Every structure is written in C-alpha cells, then in structure tokens.
C-alpha cells in the first residue's frame, strides 16, 4: 500500500509539472495583457513600459522558472489586474467556493441518491418517470438559466431570498440549487443504473431468498455496493464544483474562485489564472487519491487487487 501511495505521489508531481507548463504556455498564447491594461490609444512605448513593469518583457523560460520558484515558496506572483498577491486572492475567495460547493454537493447527493434509489426500486413506474424528468431538466437546463429563473421567482417575485452576493444562509440557497442542478441529475442517473445492476445480482437475489427484509436488502446489500461509482463521481464533481462554478458565481455575484478565474481569463491576468489552475490541479489530484482510498475502504477486494 505504501509503495502504491508513493508511486501515485510521483505521478501526481509529474502531472502538476505538465499542468504548470501547459497553463503557463496556453495563457500566454491568448494575448498580451498589456493591450488590455493600457488605454486603447496607448503607444508601443507605453505598452512596453507596462510589460517591463509587470516582468512580461523577460523570456518565457525565465518567467516560468520565476513562477515555479515562487510557487514552491507559496508566492504565486502579483495579480496584474488587482495588483495584490494572486495567492492571497485565491485563499480569500476559496472559503466562498468551498461553502457553495459543499451546499450544492449536499443538495445533489440528497436529491440524487434518494430519487435514484426510488427510480431503481420502482423501475418503469411513477417514481422512475420523476427521476427521468429530473435528469432531463438537470442535464439540459443551463445553470445560468436556472439561476436567472430562481432569481426572478424567489427574489424579485416572491421576495423570499436576496438576489445575489454572500453573507447570510439565505444568500447561499439559490446559488447552491443552481449549481447542484446538473450534478443532481448526474448523481441520480448513476445511482439508478448502479442500483439496477446490483439489484439484479446473485447476492441480492440470495439475500431475498434468505428472507431478509427488503429495506435491509436495499440498504445493506444493494446500496452499499452501488455507492462505489457514485462516490467516485461525487469526489470528482466536488472538485469541479469548487473550481469551475464560473457561471453560477457570475450570475449570483458569488465571490468564489470560479469568478476569480473568469476575471483572470478576461483580463489576461497570468498570475491569477496560473494560481487558480495550479491549485485546482492540486485539489483534483488530492481528491483522486482520497477517492482511491475510499474505494479500498468500501470494497476490500480493490485493496487486495492493488
């Protein structure tokens, strides 16, 4: 197990290196931030002055070494737009994203798992149709559209919830629901199909033949085994929710890292984009490791195989 973890850590470092190079190069291919920071009628000398001031006049390898060296010390550079450390901006925005992702994940698991199990147990019947409808709406309705509908109904029409921003629990409700829409559908579908697989398996049939109560069969034998792919997906989705809730955070003016990334890309704020992507990458790798360990915990056969 230790050898396996060490091997995975080595691969993780290699992945991070590739990620850092990729994002460093890609963001620089999208344009010169000096053209966005300067006045439209600024002359070439003004642009060059900005490049020198921001250190963008140096060669790419020099910039990369500077970036990586700084990142290893926890210094991700200074935001070109905000003119404050990019790392500080990230850590400042992270709690908002974690809060939003946790709330959205809770909603998606609560609804997705419940409806998924009910749809599998009552396959082809009323509950199954409800599940299909939820899946259809969740997967096909863009989150910005769902967000705007929620704002107009619950904030403007009913006056129940604040339209945007962050502060109270009431501020969290609509962004969390809007963000959870797609993920609820995804969790529901996977739970349903996974449960259907398991419910048709021999060991579930045996459990029923043994005369165990149906609820016991579902919870103890079926659901626990059906949970493995759902946990995997939820782990990946949680990282996605934290890092790429760009649209929802923009619609609800939620001050998370998704919006920070959007602003970074919009203004070609290299240090901000590099920081968000790199730290997001660290999060993905950490989440994958955690999910692997959870796998092994839920199903001992996996531990033995590895």
């Amino acid at each position, binding site marked *: 197990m230790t050898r396996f973890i060490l091997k995975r850590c080595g691969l993780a470092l290699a992945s991070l290196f590739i990620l850092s190079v990729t994002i460093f190069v890609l963001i620089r291919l*999208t*344009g*010169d*931030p000096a*053209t*966005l*920071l*300067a*006045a*439209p*009628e*600024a*002359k*070439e*000398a*003004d*642009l060059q*002055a900005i490049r020198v001031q921001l250190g963008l006049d140096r060669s790419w390898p020099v910039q990369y070494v500077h970036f990586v060296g700084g990142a290893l010390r926890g210094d991700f550079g200074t935001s070109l*737009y*905000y*003119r*404050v450390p990019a790392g500080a*901006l990230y850590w*400042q*925005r992270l709690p908002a994203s974690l809060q939003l992702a946790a709330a959205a994940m809770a909603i998606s698991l609560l609804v997705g798992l419940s409806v998924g199990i009910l749809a599998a147990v009552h396959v082809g019947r009323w509950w199954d149709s409800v599940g299909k409808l939820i899946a259809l709406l969740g997967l096909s309705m863009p989150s*910005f559209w769902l967000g*705007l509908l929620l*704002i*107009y109904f619950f*904030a*403007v029409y009913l*006056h129940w919830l*604040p*339209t*945007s*921003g*962050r502060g109270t629990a009431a501020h969290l409700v609509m962004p969390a629901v809007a963000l959870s829409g797609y993920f609820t559908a995804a969790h529901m579908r996977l739970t349903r199909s996974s449960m259907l697989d398991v419910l048709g398996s021999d060991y579930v049939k045996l459990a029923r033949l043994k005369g165990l109560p149906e609820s016991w069969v579902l919870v103890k034998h079926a659901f626990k085994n059906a949970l493995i792919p759902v946990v995997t997906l939820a782990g990946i989705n949680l990282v996605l929710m934290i890092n790429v809730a760009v649209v929802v955070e*923009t*619609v*609800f*003016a939620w*001050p998370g890292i998704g*919006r*920070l990334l959007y*602003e970074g890309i*919009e203004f*070609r704020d290299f240090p901000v984009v590099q920081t968000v992507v790199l730290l997001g990458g660290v999060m993905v790798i950490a989440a994958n490791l955690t999910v692997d360990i959870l796998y092994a915990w839920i199903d001992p056969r996996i531990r033995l195989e590895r």
Partner: protein
Amino acid sequence: MRANRRCFLGCVVLVLGLVLMAPARSPAAPQGTVIYAVHITIAPAWFDPADNPGQITPFIIQYALHDAVIKPMPAGMMTPSLAESWTASKDGRVYEFVLRKNVVFHNGDPMTAEDVKFSFERYRGAGAKLMKEKVEAVTIVDPHRVRFHLKEPWPDFMGFYGSPATGAGWIVPKKYVEKVGDDGFKKAPIGAGPFKLASMTPGVEIVLEAHEKYWRKTPKVKRIVMKSVPEGSTRLAMLKRGEAHIAYKTDGPLGEEVKKDSNLDLVFSGGIATWWLQFGDMNDPKSPWHNQKVRLAASLALDRKALSEAETLGASPPTGSIIPREFEWALPVEPHPYDPKRAKQLLVEAGYPNGFDAGFITPIPPYYSFAEAVAGYLGAIGIKAKVQKMERAVMFDKRRKKELGDICLCANGGFGNAVTRIDADIVSTGVHSVLKDAEIDRLFAEQSRESDPKKREALLKRIQQRVVDQAYFAPIYQLQWPNGVSKAMKVSGMGLIPTFYYTGPFEEIELR
C-alpha cells in the same frame, strides 16, 4: 392652582432643556446609504491615480476618492477644482495654478502645492513619458501656488493635465504616500475627494463614507456601497427588489424592463465613445474602399437612429464625426442621412452595380449584435460582410498592429481633445490609424508648431473637414449607456458631467 402652574413651568423647563441638550445636528449632515450594482470588478489599482491607464474606467471610483486640480464637472469639461484658477503665460511655456486654501485630505492634512508637485512627479500612467518630456520643472511659488514650466510651448498641456486623459492632475497626499508606500496606498488610499474608503473586499464590494470636510460641499449621502455584479439580469433584479439604487449598464431588453417598472427610471450617461466603420484596406488602389464613393455609400446605407434604438434604446446621438462634439476644437458634423437609394447609385457610379464581397466586419468585443445590424444595412445595398468575432485581447492586438483588414466596427472612448483623437485615429502615424493622407499629416504637423490658438483651431478643423469630405470613416453615434435608477434617488449623479459614463459629482448624489 399653584401646583398646576408649577407643573406647567416644570414642563416648559424640561422641554427647553431637552431642546438645548439635544445634539447639534446640521440639516446638511450626510444621510443614508446608496447601493450601486456595478457591471465591472473594481480593482485596487484604481485607487491610485498615479497608475491611470488612460481609460475612463478608474474614474468610476476616483471621482469619489480623489480630486483634481482641474476636471470635467457639470459646469464644463475643464472646471477648476482644487485650483481656484489657472493662467498660461503669453509664450505658452508657463502654466500657473492658484490652489484653494480650504482643502483637506481624508486624514485631515491640508492640501498644498507640495502635493500637486509630488503627484505630478510621481505619476507614471498613460501619457506620463510624454508629459515629463514636455515639462521642464514644477516650481512651488508659495503653499497655494504652483507653476509648470514647459521646455517649449505645448498647446495640449491642459488637454493632458486638466482632463481624465491622464491622472497627473489628480492629487494624492505626499506625506501619507511617502509614509505608507505605493502598496500601502493601494490598500488604504487617502484622497481629497468627497468620499473616503471605509472597507473593501476585492472582487465583491467597496464601502465609502462621506468626507464631511470636503471643500466643495458636504456630501448628502453618508455611505456608498459599490457591489460588483457582472451579470446584467442580476443587476436588474437587485434594482427591482430594492437591493440596489443604481445599476450601471442596463442595456437592450434590460433597459426595456427598467422602462416598464414604475419604481425605476432609465437614465442615460456617457457619450465620449464614438463608434464608426473603418475601412482597413482603403489605401490599396485595388480595394473597392479606395473609392470615396464606395465609402460614402457605406455611410449612407446606415440608419443611425435605428441602430441607436436597437443597441441603446435610442440614447446614443448619431454623429457625422469620429470626434465627440463636446471636445475642444471639434468640428460639429451632422451625420449622413439614411439614404440607401443614393448609396446604391453611388455604388453604380463607382463601378459596383451588383455590390461586392467586403469580407469581414470585426467589432470591438462584445458588440456583435451591433456588427450584425451594421452588416445587415451594408448587405441591403449589396456590400456583403460577415461578422468576425475575436477575443478581446486578440482583437486589440490586431487593431494596434493594423492587421484587422476589411471593415472594423471601431470606437475610441478616451478623454482629451480633437488633437488626441486625430493623433490616435487619423494621422498616418496614429496608433490605430489606417489612413495615409499626406495632406492631413502635413496639416497636423503644422498645427503642432502653431502658437496662435485661432490659427491652430483652423488647421485642426481643416483636418476634420477633409476627413468628412473624403468619407474616410462612416461615423455612427456617440455611445450612451442606459442605466437603471431607483425612484428612491433624488439625484443619481448620472449624466451630470458631460460625456461621463458614471455617476458624479458624488457630493451631489442624494436620496429622497
């Protein structure tokens, strides 16, 4: 009876006592909180005028936090603010500013000539290099009098120093900046403006509080909260729900919604950004755009009023010049009428009876629907053009390198005067100019050497007239924004300063 009288007297004394003991409260004391839903993210870099990029955006906050020696105000584009007055020497080499004596910064320090000199010398934003090349020295005559000595006469000095074209005339406190440094200043800026920074959450909101000792007048509002809300529909929802008093940029269908709501007003602001069609390859004799008649046909094909209706709810006045009529030395030019019949006739005369394929029309992002509408009008007379979408930085880069080709739906929104616009967009060396007209270049060089203001103005107007006669551009309109304002606002400050897109002066903003 006696007891009653005693009781009555006691009551009178009590009431008088309460009245006298009540805290003195001026009727002019700032009151209430005004909440803005701002369409962009406010950056701390904008707290320091020394870094102004030459764009108008930082003034969304600088008009509240800071003050300038001379600045655009409702009274005019160059209104004395921290200076009571200014004079220029006859030889045009010395500008003297007499400063107000009752100005204090937010920390209570008085504003003096030292601060004016320091702010100019510290300035490093757009145009800094040019200004410092032209200015030989800044001397302090006395604590409230400062002189700028130029190396040679430079008629545009006030155009740069006295307008938001630069931040060189926006004053910061020397002692404080030297004490806290540049980074410290961005974290906790101190200015001489009508509002001071109370708190800031980057990317979320900033809170400002009234500077009650502001020299011009005590602000009427106690507190201002500017929330960054990039999504237009959310800004509108905030307005409708009463969570915001002012929502910037509620254009298109959002503006229509504002109009329908009896609790809201639709208010227009701005106008400094002129929009026009630029014909990229008009210098190439093989290009149809080389022919003046074709360029004129394109201009006559545009229904500017309808474009203004569709894009800005009719707020943007059509124009016949790429230079805003409010600018110093601007030649007021009436827009071409919408005349597709004559436009088609001109195409026939130019040798294009069936029109031609004009390639792409590239707008400044994200004005794609505007470009689609323009392409529709051109298509109606036979000039076929497809809209090309480009990412903002890429488009800016190509425009600067003059690689856009075909047609550009372009704009310029910088402050300044006719000279700054001609310099950027018309003379052959202009940063965005695709024009190559030797006569214009000659006239421009001549005006830069001319010391007689009247002769200079005549030369500048000749340049503008030549641009119109040759139909080098197809000017469209001076862009104005529709904004949503709650009826709870007595004075929103929107549209008070000519051509300014944001609210101001902040000391005038008032709740009902």
